[in-house]
């Protein structure tokens, strides 16, 4: 958090005027003939002015439903949605001061690019000259100044994406809602658009609420990320907080690769719990409250682990376990190892390709894995399902 790269245009601290968007006890249940589906179970969230906030989660976690409720396409079953302190429940979408960028872009195919961008302004009874200049200015901002007379279907996917963005931003909404806007682009373009989106957001200073299932996207762009699962918020925090200090198994598994270990606490003192990992191995984990005999779940990121041969490592890497290399993959800038612990669990280790191109260990070799206690993360909750990132140690 100290090394936050982006300028901090806001502070989401409550108390200094109403938040740009506030959700209070929002619930949404869909009723159909055969079943009821609770898409959003309970949501309390404040989004600050000028903030870039991501709603991150697997499909069906309720993130898109939440966005659609803010836009006004769905009404919450319970709770309040406030824009700058005013409740929006019951207000139709065309009277809400937010605009949406749709996953399919939803550009009007029978209009030119310029007509698409002008659509919102023309609804506001703004003079023709001003509409024209604002459309021009917005097309300039997204780098499509010379494409105004084209039809949307004559543009590439990335360009269509920019038109959708321009069409929403030109209205100067108090918040921009983006529903997986980059999902349809290929990888290279998606990465370029991530940077572009972030630049545009900083330029215009508008609150962005960004829905995505792509953790990389969320980490790259967001000021804060809301991780959702099963219609509930799992954790809210800056990208660094969520990556470095995930609180639940779900968050640890969904953001990045996590090694999950389970064990029984053998001793607890000074806020540090110790679990036994066999063969002289031991894992220390900072814990606010624990007791001998507790079953706990510990996670450690693959890049925090150091791999060594021979004797048990000493120094400040007090956590250490022993295992056998079962797989080694060369990834160019790094190597990944799959290490099978003597206890049967498998840990992933990421090793940067340093001065020597030689891999540290080969398949079948016995190695020590060690890391600092502060990199041990105590987790709660059930594992992330379907992500495949969490190695369930069973």
């Amino acid at each position, binding site marked *: 958090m100290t090394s936050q790269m982006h300028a901090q245009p806001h502070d989401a601290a409550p108390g200094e005027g109403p938040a740009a968007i506030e959700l209070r006890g929002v619930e949404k249940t869909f009723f159909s003939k055969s079943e009821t589906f609770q898409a959003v179970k309970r949501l309390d969230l404040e989004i600050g002015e000028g903030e870039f906030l991501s709603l991150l989660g697997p499909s069906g976690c309720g993130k898109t439903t939440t966005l659609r409720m803010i836009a006004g396409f769905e009404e919450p079953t319970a709770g309040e949605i406030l824009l700058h302190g005013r409740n929006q429940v019951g207000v139709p979408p*065309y009277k809400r001061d937010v605009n949406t960028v749709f996953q399919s872009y939803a550009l009007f195919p029978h209009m030119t690019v310029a007509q698409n961008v002008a659509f919102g302004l023309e609804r506001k009874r703004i003079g023709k000259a001003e509409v024209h200049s604002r459309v021009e200015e917005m097309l300039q901002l997204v780098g499509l100044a010379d494409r105004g007379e084209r039809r949307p279907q004559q543009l590439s996917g990335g360009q269509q994406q920019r038109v959708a963005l321009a069409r929403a931003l030109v209205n100067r909404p108090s918040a921009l809602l983006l529903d997986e806007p980059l999902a349809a682009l290929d990888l290279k373009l998606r990465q370029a658009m991530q940077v572009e989106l972030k630049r545009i957001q900083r330029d215009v200073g508008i609150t962005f609420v960004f829905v995505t299932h792509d953790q990389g996207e969320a980490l790259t762009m967001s000021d804060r990320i809301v991780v959702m699962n099963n219609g509930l918020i799992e954790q809210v925090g800056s990208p660094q907080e969520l990556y470095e200090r995930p609180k639940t198994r779900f968050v640890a598994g969904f953001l990045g690769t996590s090694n999950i270990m389970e064990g029984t606490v053998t001793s607890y003192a000074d806020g540090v719990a110790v679990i036994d990992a066999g063969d002289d191995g031991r894992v220390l984990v900072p814990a606010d409250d624990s007791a001998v005999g507790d079953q706990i779940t510990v996670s450690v990121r693959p890049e925090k682990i150091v791999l060594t041969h021979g004797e048990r490592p000493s120094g400040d890497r007090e956590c250490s376990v022993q295992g056998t290399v079962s797989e080694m993959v060369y990834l160019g800038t790094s190597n990944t190892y799959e290490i099978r612990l003597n206890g049967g669990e498998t840990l992933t280790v990421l090793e940067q390709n340093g001065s020597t191109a030689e891999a540290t260990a080969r398949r079948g070799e016995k190695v020590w894995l060690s890391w600092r206690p502060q990199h041990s993360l105590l987790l709660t909750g059930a594992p992330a399902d379907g992500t495949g990132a969490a190695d369930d140690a069973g």
Partner: protein
Amino acid sequence: MTTSVKSAPVARRPKRKWTYYILPVYTWAVLLYLCLPIFVMILFGFNNTKGRYNITFQGFTLKWYKELFAIGGLTDALKNSLTIAVLATIISVAIGGALGMALGRYRFRGKGGVSLVVFAQIATPELVLGTSLLSLFLTLNIPRGYWTILLAHIMFCIPFVAVTVQARVAGLDGSLREAALDLGATPMVAFRKVTLPMIMPGILAGALLSFALSIDDFVTTSFNAGQTVTFPLWVYGSSRLGIPAQVNVMGTLIFLFGVILAAYSILAGRRKKN
């Protein structure tokens, strides 16, 4: 590399195998089959007939075009047919279009039943529709004439409009309408500015179908016409005495009108794509 450049002569088209010609010949044969009656109709509109029968070609003339409206009964019949076709088209587009929108966009109780009725109406033999309508009008003691014909035509046109509009609406990205609402358009404006232009091809197709169905309908009309005579009824009635060449001319003009409309819609569609 040099040899290949040197040895490349001006390419002569290699002799094609006879199988290459199967598809073109077949295609032209089918097109000819489809168009032959139309050619005959057009040709006999220029026939310089001496007697009352217009069945052998006796020389070229333009006089039937000059005397197009010389037969009073025929002109009245054509007028009836045209006004009925236009009214039936407008009204069935309004009713059938709304029906198609509902079927294409919404899920509602009884949707399956409505779809069934629409398709049953298309599938039912006209003879059945015509006779049952006649019994209905007789039972209700409604005098048959111009308005009962119109009512019958609207009835059999609605399903065709509904089906074409429904297909168009179902293929529409639902977020287009949401995008319009999101950008500040009221539901009415969103319909006018976005939904309507998007489903226009479906509406036009339905309208063309309706017009074509109405203007040459014979079966249903004959049961419900009373004393009113439409173009097809007049032609049928005169066939025993010999059909005058004006009928061919009118048929040609109606055909040309249809061709122009179809060509326009194709060209408009092409322009939109480019």
